[in-house]
């Protein structure tokens, strides 16, 4: 099995999986919060928040990547603070790649979650409150289980988007093998060097397989969750 891919290709695949996993996992709680706010709360600046969330979807990825570099670079406003306070460096590290992937995937995640939350009947949440459940418990015991199918779908979509992210990542954290060279960056690199086509092709196949399996698994999980929610 290991012979099938060369070490450099394995490295790119492993890095991509790690970046996508962490970016999806860490953006989920914030995604749920933002989606809940957009679906249920009335507040000033709601349209602004909505626009901000969707910005990465409409901006050229290179622009998003450059903005990230300006903000989270070692001399950027937030970047310098993060390094001082927590010793956390994002620029040109795999953690930066995860941040870029998370931000690019965020609109897709929020859209899926928002649809799921809007489909939950607020009357059920009212009923839970009259039974003594505080806001937190209403969310944990009623809202969250009911949006589970949407949450799974959104997470898989975000994961797939993170696997494929290229423009913002290469602009923000460059293309360093073993550090920031994700699957798409590796494919791009292999295509730049003579004789790299076969490596590129193998990674393309890997990409397709990973994306398809993610889709199948999510379909299976979402269907099982939906059956539970339907109450039959």
């Amino acid at each position, binding site marked *: 099995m290991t012979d099938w891919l060369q070490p450099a290709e394995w490295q790119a695949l492993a890095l991509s999986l790690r970046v996508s996993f962490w970016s999806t996992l860490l953006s989920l709680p914030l995604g749920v919060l933002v989606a809940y706010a957009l679906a249920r709360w009335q507040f000033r600046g709601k349209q602004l928040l909505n626009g901000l969330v969707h910005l990465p979807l409409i901006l050229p990825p290179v622009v998003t990547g450059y903005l990230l570099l300006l903000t989270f670079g070692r001399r950027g406003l937030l970047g310098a603070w993060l390094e001082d306070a927590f010793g956390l460096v994002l620029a040109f590290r795999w953690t930066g790649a995860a941040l870029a992937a998370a931000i690019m995937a965020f609109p897709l995640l929020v859209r899926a979650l928002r649809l799921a939350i809007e489909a939950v009947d607020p009357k059920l949440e009212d009923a839970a409150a009259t039974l*003594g459940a505080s806001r937190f418990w209403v969310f944990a015991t009623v809202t969250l289980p009911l949006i589970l199918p949407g949450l799974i779908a959104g997470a898989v979509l975000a994961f797939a988007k993170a696997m494929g992210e290229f423009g913002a990542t290469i602009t923000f954290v460059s293309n360093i093998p073993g550090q920031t060279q994700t699957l798409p960056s590796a494919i791009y690199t292999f295509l730049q060097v003579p004789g790299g086509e076969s490596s590129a092709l193998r990674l393309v196949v890997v990409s397709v397989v990973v994306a398809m399996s993610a889709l199948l698994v999510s379909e299976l999980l979402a269907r099982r969750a939906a059956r539970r929610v339907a109450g039959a």
Partner: protein
Amino acid sequence: MSLSVDITHRLGALDLYIAFQAPTGITALFGRSGTGKTTVINAVAGLLRPESGHIELSGEILFDAEAGISLPIHKRRLGYVFQDGRLFPHLSVRQNLTFGQRFAAGSGGLSLADVCDLLGIAGLLDRRPGTLSGGEKQRVAIGRALLSRPRMLLMDEPLAALDSARKAEILPFLERLRDQTDIPVLYVSHSVAEVARLATTVVVLEAGRVARSGRAEQILSDPDMVRQLGVREAGAVLPAKVRAHHADGLSELDISGGRLFLPRMDVAPGTTTRVRILAQDVILSRDAPVGLSALNILPVRIIALHEGNGPGVIVQMQSGEDRLLARITRRSADAMVLKENENVHAVVKSVSIARTDVGTA
């Protein structure tokens, strides 16, 4: 335990000003749709914030606009049974029933076994809400509210979405609830039959105001209620005590002004119950009738005659300590020269005392 409500709220074109007291027992909020019944019950539950006013339960302030107090919904501890049940679709019946238990402080109150017994739902525990019938769902919803150890139950037309067979299935459970627990109930309904059978106190709402309130027997036997109830539903509700069951399939009941025979009731002699006599089922006679098939003839004294816009007259009568209503035509009233304070005989067609309109109290 008593609830006191005094609130104002503006709801579209409707200006609500509602003030009433709900003592122990079942207090029915009665009125046509659009008179503000659901708004009131939602304000009590905390699902709606009234513009001004005060709501208090046994001395604890639930809401006070001036003091800026509005207890959060989950801290009010009022079990709410919604018209549409609102069972959680992702939980089993058992999990639905015990949902409120984990949030209820302390111990005591009804256990799961008590509630299953009271509502006859022991066989449903492992089912999913999606597989239940309408009547079953509603019984589970009532059980779920009871198990959250509520200080009071709020019921918003819990039977309105059900057909008459399912209603008949649930009404006895509500009666047992009233008679076997000491949890007060605020019951929203537009059905006279339900109110007559269940309520101990009636609050009549009309266009966002309390038109009248008081004990169920008094309010329902009031001739002025005919307008709200409609002539077909107007009638008296009186307390009765089962005296004996006879071999010919009739039960004999004592009322303060005499005795009544009606088709056999499934209760032991000595039980107190409540009977409802519709105004349109009462015939008046000056002399004691002879050679008449009707069994129930009560000597009564006329208290008042109320003429409406139509051809009918509502006659209010004293029968012992209770009051009866009769609806007769104006022509008959003129021909018989009926006057106040006269003694006449009220003929009640025994078949007219419908079983579903007879409730135990």
